[in-house]
């Protein structure tokens, strides 16, 4: 660490986003980048804490202070090496991670201006690709074979780790390409898909076999492997079984998002198949990140308007005493997609979908609800108020999360990783889960020797 007082003189500087008018017309990445000098200055703000809460908060245990130090000294290759010790896909997390590290950064606590950990991370890996620090390596083989079912972040991360340890890894994926929700869920304006392809090319050269379009029945795992990683994610979205659900124009969020990404990747869809918000009055039900992605996507598809509703109350702005530092703060977040235009309402429960007369959805009847704190301190309880109203819309997206998957009783050589194990969560947790499962698998194999 060059100067422990740098944070006093150098303000946090985010790279910022492309202007709304410019970005809503296309799916190019919204986030911009800083020049190298500014990036080094940003890294120099890291105080190299005796107790680095960023490192602690990161599910991957990224040793941010170590690589911030390297970056601020211009030692990019070292920074890359340090970063890749804990993170196999910094180009993913550097773009789309909600950055638990920054929320628990001491500078966030002290002066609401954390180190730009995520952006710095992204700079390191982009530089590493640019400079050729990232190149295929070969690892001595140990003669054992493993299958990874599902090529989402958890599966990929497990595959990378196992490959490093010498296993012959085959990744089985039902979709035409790897990446899981990173490829088929996250819109391109947040993460361009060349990022995944670039990495896959490296992985393939390192000896990982990818087989696409393979649907694996987890009840009957394919033969010929010493062990398995199940990283099939959470394929089932939570539904909203209220009257009118069968009407046309009501989609799951992923229906929209996946198709948009596939279309951008060059796939063609028939008119009947097409899910598009073009010219529509869109209602997104569910106030999370997926909902947010839907908003951005709808804007780019040329919708007329967007509203987002959420059953939970509006979270506090800025600071929430219920979730103090270094915990993840439950506060109002405004994404780039929100900035692009969206009405947001909270504490609304959906009662029924209304027919526009043509079998298409024409609106939703919602009821305002109140949330009462539970006497035992548990989950607050919902109390309907009876104040009902109707929201007009002709395009509804259900973004209410995903269901925790059920698995059959697996044998001892099968290890479940990522969302498939924990239920829906963040990409960074999936990556950590993949690593953990790989370690478990390796321990299992090594103990059997």
């Amino acid at each position, binding site marked *: 660490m060059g100067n422990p007082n740098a944070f*006093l003189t150098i303000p946090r500087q985010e790279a910022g986003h492309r202007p709304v008018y410019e970005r809503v017309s296309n799916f190019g990445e919204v986030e911009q980048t800083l020049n190298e000098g500014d990036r080094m200055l940003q890294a120099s703000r890291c*105080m190299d804490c*005796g*107790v680095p*809460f960023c490192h602690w908060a990161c599910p991957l245990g990224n040793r941010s202070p170590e690589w911030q130090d390297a970056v601020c000294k211009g030692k990019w290759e070292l920074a890359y090496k340090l970063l890749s010790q804990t993170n196999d896909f910094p180009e993913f997390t550097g773009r789309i991670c909600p950055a638990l590290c920054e929320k628990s950064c001491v500078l966030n606590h002290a002066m609401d201006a954390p180190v730009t950990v995520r952006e710095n991370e992204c700079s390191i890996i982009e530089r590493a690709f640019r400079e050729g620090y990232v190149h295929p390596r070969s690892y001595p083989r140990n003669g054992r074979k493993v299958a990874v079912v599902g090529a989402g972040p958890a599966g990929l991360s497990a595959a990378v780790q196992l490959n490093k340890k010498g296993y012959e890894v085959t990744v089985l994926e039902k979709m035409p390409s790897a990446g899981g929700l990173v490829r088929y869920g996250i819109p391109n304006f947040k993460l361009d898909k060349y990022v995944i392809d670039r990495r896959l090319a490296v992985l393939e050269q390192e000896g990982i076999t990818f087989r696409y379009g393979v649907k694996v029945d987890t009840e009957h795992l394919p033969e010929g492997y010493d062990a398995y990683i199940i990283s099939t994610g959470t394929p089932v979205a939570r539904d909203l079984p209220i009257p009118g659900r069968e009407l046309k124009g009501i989609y799951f969020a992923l229906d929209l998002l996946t198709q948009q990404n596939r279309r951008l990747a060059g796939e063609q869809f028939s008119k009947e198949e097409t899910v598009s918000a073009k010219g529509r009055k869109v209602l997104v039900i569910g106030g999370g990140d997926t909902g947010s992605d839907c908003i951005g996507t709808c804007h780019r598809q040329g919708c007329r308007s967007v509203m987002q509703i959420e059953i939970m109350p509006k979270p506090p702005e800025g600071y929430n005493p219920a979730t103090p530092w270094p915990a993840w703060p439950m506060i109002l977040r405004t994404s780039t997609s929100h900035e692009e235009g969206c009405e947001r309402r909270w504490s609304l429960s959906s009662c029924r979908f209304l027919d526009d007369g043509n079998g298409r959805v024409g609106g939703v009847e919602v009821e305002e609800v109140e949330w009462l704190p539970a006497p035992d301190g548990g989950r607050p309880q919902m109390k309907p108020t009876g104040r009902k109203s109707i929201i007009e819309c002709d395009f509804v997206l259900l973004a209410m999360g995903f269901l925790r998957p059920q698995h059959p009783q697996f044998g001892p050589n099968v290890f479940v990783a990522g969302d498939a194990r924990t239920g829906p969560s963040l990409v960074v947790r999936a990556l950590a889960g993949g690593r953990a499962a790989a370690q478990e698998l390796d321990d299992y194999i090594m103990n059997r020797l």
Partner: protein
Amino acid sequence: MERTLYDPAYEHDACGVGLIADLNGNKTHQLVSDGLTMLENLKHRGAEGADAKTGDGAGIMVQIPHEFILLQGIPVPERSRYGTGLVFLPKDGKAGEEYIEVLREEIRREGLVLSNVREVPVNSDILGETARACEPHVVQVFITGANSPEGLETRLYRIRKHVEQKISDKDFYIVSLSSKVLIYKGMLTSTQLKEYYPDLSSPFFTSGLALVHSRFSTNTFPAWSLAQPFRMMAHNGEINTIRGNRGWMEAREGVLSSKALGDVRDISPIIQPGMSDSASFDNTMEFFYHSGMELPHVMSMMIPESFNEKNPIGNDLKAFYEYHSILMEPWDGPAAILFSDGRYAGGMLDRNGLRPSRYLITDKGVLAIASEAGCLPVSAGSVVEKGSLQPGKILMVDTRTGRIFRNDEIKQTLADGHDYRRWLSNGRIELAKLRSGRKAENTVPDFEKKLRAFDYTREDVERIIIPMCNSASEPVSSMGNDTPLAAVSERPQLLFNYFRQQFAQVTNPPIDPIREDLVMSLTEYIGAVGMNILTPDEDHCKMVRLPQPVLTNDELDILCHIRYKGFNTEVLPILFEKSKGEIGMKEALDSLCREAEASVDKGINYIILSDRGIDETHAAIPSLLAVSAIHHYLVKVQKRVRTALIVESGEIRETMHSALLLGYGASAVNPYMAFAIIDDLVKKGELQLDFETARKNYIKAVDKGLKKILSKMGISTIRSYRGAKIFESIGLGAELLKDYFGTPSSTVGGISLSRIALDAARLHAQGFCSEVSDILPHVGQYSFRKDGIQHSWTPEAIAALQLSTRTGNYKKFKEFTSIVDGHKDPIFLRDFFSFRHNPIPIEEVEPVEEIVKRFVGAAMSFGAISQGAHEAIAEALNRLGSRSNTGEGGEDRERFHTDKNSGIKQVASGRFGVTTEYLVNAREIQIKIAQGAKPGEGGQLPGYKVDEIIARTRHSIPGISLISPPPHHDIYSIEDLAQLIFDLRNVNPEARISVKLVAESGVGTVAAGVAKAKADLIVISGAEGGTGASPMSSIRYAGISPEIGLSETRQTLIKNGLRDKVTLQTDGQLKTGRDVVAMALLGADEFGFGTAQLIVLGCVLMRKCHANSCPMGIATRNKKLLGLYRGCSDSLVNYYRFLAEEVREYLADMGFRKFEDIVGRTDLIVVDRAKAGSKAASLDFSRLLCQDDEGPLHADPDHRNILGDVLDKHIMAAARPALEEGRNVSLHYGISNTDRAVGAMLSGRIAERYGEEGLPDGTLNVTFHGSAGQSFGAFLMKGVSFRLEGETNDYLGKGLSGGRIVVRPDPDAHFDASANTIAGNTLLYGATSGSLFMAGRAGERFAVRNSGAIAVVEGVGDHCCEYMTGGRVVVLGPTGRNFAAGMSGGLAYVWDPDHNFDYYCNMEMIELGLIEEKARMEELKSLIAEHRRLTGSALAARMLEHWSEYAEDFIQVTPIEYKRVLHEEQLRKLNEKIDNVQMDY
């Protein structure tokens, strides 16, 4: 093996000494009686045990009272033809008779006759209980049959040594056996000596000299034999280097035969085992004396003065010292030694002059030397000379001829003894001057593998090596160490990690290695010591001189290849076959020892132990193990001094590593991997230096670090440190310690060789058995890492503690404690404890309000932490009825009478802000001896951190650096501490006086001494305690776990019957109720919390306190950051209440209603067995938990230490009109040296009533006549004026707070005031304001740490104005060495008629110049005029009369920082003026 942790080897003592000799050779009883009077007047320097009647020891040495003996009817031949001496026999008559027979037989074998055994009459009734229990049967033996006095002394010596060889009963002791002197001594107080031995009162009991001693021992155990004088000397002080000295004397015995004594084996061991440091010194001294050396020669060899270039002594004398330094390492330590062989008698001080010694010579031909002036009443008119012994100097008289030998004469004679200079220049080789033309490689093959095999981490490189290369000093860090002890960590450890540095506290002072560098030396000589070194010979000089112990690869290469002058070397690989494991390592060690022995036999001059050859199959033996094993083996076979050991090891990177290797016997080390890393860093551009510079800086950093490690033990030279083993281990098994480290026992047991072999193999495997990644691992030693080394402060714990205390949520608090108590693997020793259950309803347990009073704030100074945090802590603890601690930075007086007043006022070595008013506003005054994170070290607050408010509270000047010296300059010894306690109790009789110590082995004995010095409370701080800034190696490697220190303290206090007389407090990483209960069971009454408090206030353990960048606004002075502080006292109140609540739960579970009932109850501790086969399973807590002695287990809350009658009480009564109504009062008193701290109590009352302002000037005037005791005028307040006609002792004007002191010789005295010493050492220590005028000279360290007083004096000793930060000092006479060391503020004017003052100055921080400014010259002149007016000084009168002549000879000493501040001030004023001028236009 010992059952408890108490070990008599750690006993310390110190004392008062006195010598009186008749220069005319008259033998009188008056002289003996005067000697006893001196002794009685030194009573306060001795101590009493718990029964208040048992003294620690007193004794007297006299010339043999021939007439008296004849009068007893004992037929003895004429004077000097017979030997006599007292003998202590066991009370059991039969054993006694047997021993007398042994004695008789030995006398017979020597050809002499035991002609008589006289029962010495004693008066046992006066003895205290403890002394009586072990009272010996005292007889006097008479040995006749010698034909001539020639050689009789030596024969008697031989007899005594032979008897000592034969009888090992500790109840048998020959007090002395001599034809010249006789010694009476015993476990007595000073006043009891005369009563106990009626002999001494007989008018026929005459002598021409008397040497007396009064002992203050830390422990009062049966120790009649340890009373002094010993056979040739009496010692006040402590030999710090004793372990090394004893070891090397043992090692040296093989080469010490002399003509006079014959084969040394006949009298071996030279040093009688099981005795005190002084006794060992005496043994060695008499050995050399009987070998034929003159007394001054022996003394100068054993206690050489410092002879580096900063010392003004001649080159011949330097050569004398250098020659002898090859033969003998210095016996270093605070020492005033008075010695006599019956004819010659004299005194000498150690090189630092750390003990006072004052002398006078009367016109009747009597010389008296004593620890204090005035202890022998002499009429002023008869004194012809008064002086004080100087550091490293001797004064001696021949009682036969009456001749006085002054130092210069003695030393010149010694220097002229042989042509030492020529001998040295012919024989000695200086490594720095050798050139070989060869070039040693700095790279290492298989570098990456070896890095891992030697367990290098990225932190080693980035946090240790790089900073050392860049800044040439050790890196600094902050907060405490919260990682697991090596002993409990399952990670493979370097063997170094098990060791901790020891340090001096209370019983001897650490040294300031920076400001007092002139006494330090890292010079080492290597080569083979020849046989018969007692015969002076040029051949002994055949040595290589190393300027410092770290050798570069080039230097080592040269050493290996000197063939010049017959030097031989051999390299022994310290490797073992990894596949053979423990057996392989053991075999390798055995064969190494044998090979080393064979090398010695071959005449190899130095053996190089190297692990360079580590490869796929060979792992390295830990270098420390190898060197220690060989060192101890060679000592055992008596061949050690005939060779030198050099370690070439890849393990060495930190200073601690080098220190350990040297401490266990190596003469030099070569850290080749560190050099390879530096080389690599330079090549990669990570170090922007060239290799030579980087390496030079690295070595310089190690050198500085070594000096620091040496100095914290009070040791000045590496030669006394080598092999002295001034370390202790935690977690090494007894067998291992015994076999390889020469240490007889282990505190808590631990690992054996098998585990070391296993770890060595595992480390080797890190490098050689697996593919190594291209980045070194970062294991989280210095900062938390999830998968790294465990820390006890985890992010979860910090977050939970902050949240729970902020919101007042007890449930959340329990979450915090379960995180902390439940960490995965043990970290501290207490983690192995659980407690017995016997539940009772919690309602029955005493309330939270009672328990919280036992929790106190740990010392953190304002300045180290911000005002907000400091005040919040004070507020919270005041609300709880407990006490916060000011720390060492003083306290803003605005806070004194508010709820922000800190209950505990700390008095640290810097004495910052320690004014009378500060002290009277305390409920507890804490003397900080040491701090867990850096025991034995000083500190520094850099000038840029000293802003207006800090300067105000510390009574200093903004912008000026403030240095805290390593020692308290008024505590060099235990009786000094007693004096300081006495001073403080006088100032504030209501406050408890506490003493803060740091845990180390031996702390129990120190604590017992502190209790005997009448402290009310003792803090045993754990080594893990926090800090605002401290060298990283000190945080990690100094001091030990509080569990061990506390247990030893508990055991020792109970053994001494002192436990209920003192409250015990502990601290160091305490966090939860469980910690509190565990430490209570080990004996603590109270508990200190530091880090936990800060975390409650928002600290997130950045460990950046030293960087001034605390983002939580706690440990910073940065205004912007201060704004980020968001702590509040309510959270702290919550914390302490929660903690108490949790303690209640434990009490209920254990079945106790009151907290005090569990204190010291080690029987309630259940030790949780660690996993079998784990490292921790080898720990053994039995010594820790054992409680053998019976007695109270906790402090008696009603015990009070009460002050007796002091002069101040009389003064206060007489001065009532002044104190109460402000009327002018003048008083007169006689005063003697037993009147101590006069003025302190009086000042306390004034400060209490009138605050800092005191009384109007001149309100109370008191004149004293006589010899004032120590601390005269201490803390004297404004408005009080003391005038002393006579002389004074040490610590005059300590903490002066506005009062005026005038000292001048007695009007009857005839001597020239300006040429005689009338005051002791360490005057005006920590004075903040006021003035002193003294017509006469003072001793060492005049005006040390003065921050505002004005003083005029007519001559000073060494280290004048040390650490001074303000005020004025005028010296109208000579100064000693090292003037103005560490002086950052104030001004000094020195009269320098000889124009050599610059030589005596430490120029580091000051500038010298003539007095140029008119204002300055006027100031000086007016001070001298004032001096003349007040003291009537003849010198001052002369100067004023011829002012223009004298004025030119004055030198102004200006600290550079002060100069800058003055300059800025001037600039500011100018700018103001300019601004005003512009406004007028």
